[in-house]
């Protein structure tokens, strides 16, 4: 039997932009990196349902309520696509959820900020989903097949999310002085955390090396962040919102915006559990998981009983 140089086959595929599939040989670190990244992404979708869920009962119209419900259901669906992709790597969803509850797996920092007013629902859709889209569009070309396909599916659904958020902001900016103030306040609170969603600067990003080499990540944190800034500034201007960054200015030479310093201390504080809502988000998730336990067990017991009946 001919000996197969698995690493070489793998590296050739990566080099030629041929996707890696679930049953293909892959280096352990590639698998580990993917499990960490995809599960973090999945957890983010699911935890991200909470700040928006906070406003379902208080949405200002039936139209707004229906849209918000549909959006939150999408986030749940996106979480499931991603858990499904992670499971192809040989890890179970129960284990992934356990890692989240044990604090071993992270979710996006952004969801540790509170949604204080209705304008926050606009800002989350426009800025948070807007930032996520920039990242996810890039990830459609990630090297792992199941992850890439999940991203394609998610991207198809996300642009509704961003547009409904921007519509909320535009409506409020066309409203009363109090509404405009509320919209600007949401902008002020969400702008910087949205920029932090892209992660540390390229020079300080601990996971970038292998992820780029293996084409898990196709564009760097700073490149993606810049893309987001460049397209969002104009959208803010159109509806009369001010970007809360006095150092933001157009750079004619590089044809994009220069921006002010990001507060990385705040980023680290929130990652380490000291954001405004970390404990609440996690305890809600654990509570929902525990309260659903009897349902999962009952359905399993019912299924076992049916199987016994068939075999008798």
């Amino acid at each position, binding site marked *: 039997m001919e000996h*197969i140089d698995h690493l070489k086959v793998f590296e050739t595929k990566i080099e030629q932009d041929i996707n890696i*599939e679930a*049953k*293909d*040989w892959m280096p352990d670190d590639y698998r580990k990196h993917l499990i960490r990244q995809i599960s973090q992404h999945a957890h983010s979708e699911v935890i991200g349902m909470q700040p928006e869920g906070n406003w379902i009962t208080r949405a200002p119209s039936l139209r707004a309520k229906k849209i918000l419900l*549909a959006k939150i*259901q*999408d986030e749940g*669906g996106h979480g*499931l*696509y991603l858990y*499904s*992709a992670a*499971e192809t790597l040989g890890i*179970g*969803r*129960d284990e992934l*959820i356990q890692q989240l509850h044990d604090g071993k797996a992270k979710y996006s920092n952004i969801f540790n900020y509170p949604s204080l007013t209705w304008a926050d629902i606009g800002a989350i859709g426009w800025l948070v989903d807007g930032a996520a889209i920039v990242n996810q569009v890039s990830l459609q070309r990630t090297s792992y097949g*199941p992850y890439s*396909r*999940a991203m394609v*599916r998610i991207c198809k*659904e996300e642009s509704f999310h961003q547009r409904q958020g921007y519509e909320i902001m535009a409506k409020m900016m066309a409203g009363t002085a109090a509404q405009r103030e509320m919209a600007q306040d949401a902008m002020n609170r969400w702008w910087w955390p949205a920029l932090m969603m892209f992660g540390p600067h390229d020079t300080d990003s601990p996971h970038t090396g292998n992820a780029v080499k293996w084409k898990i990540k196709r564009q760097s944190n700073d490149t993606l962040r810049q893309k987001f800034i460049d397209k969002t500034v104009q959208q803010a201007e159109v509806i009369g919102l001010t970007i809360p960054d006095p150092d933001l200015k157009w750079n004619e030479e590089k044809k994009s915006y220069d921006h002010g310093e990001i507060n990385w201390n705040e980023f680290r504080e929130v990652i380490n559990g000291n954001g405004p809502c970390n404990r609440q988000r996690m305890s809600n998730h654990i509570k929902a998981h525990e309260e659903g*336990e009897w349902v*999962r*067990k009952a*359905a*399993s*017991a*019912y*299924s076992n009983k*049916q199987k016994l009946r068939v075999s008798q």
Partner: protein
Amino acid sequence: MENVKDTQWPIWEVFIQSQPGTPYKHAGSVHGSDKEIAMQNARDTYFRRNEGTSIWLVPTDCIIASNPDDAEMFFDPSNDKAYRHPTFYTMPEGALNI
């Protein structure tokens, strides 16, 4: 029942037919304790926007996949049979509708 460990239920692969007449295409997977619940979950997860008109579900452990390590050898027999393609044959000048 107390001894049942936390279960996320068995996994089912979901195949979607986008419209009648087209082939079924793999969409992803869902968890379900039985086929009815798996079907409901597949609909809620993969059919929120008119994605199709029909679903196939297959328990994941029933899928038999070819071994990627053997791919070259396994699929090799189809590489050297040009006579299986219509372009292999020379047709007489002037023959129509063939």
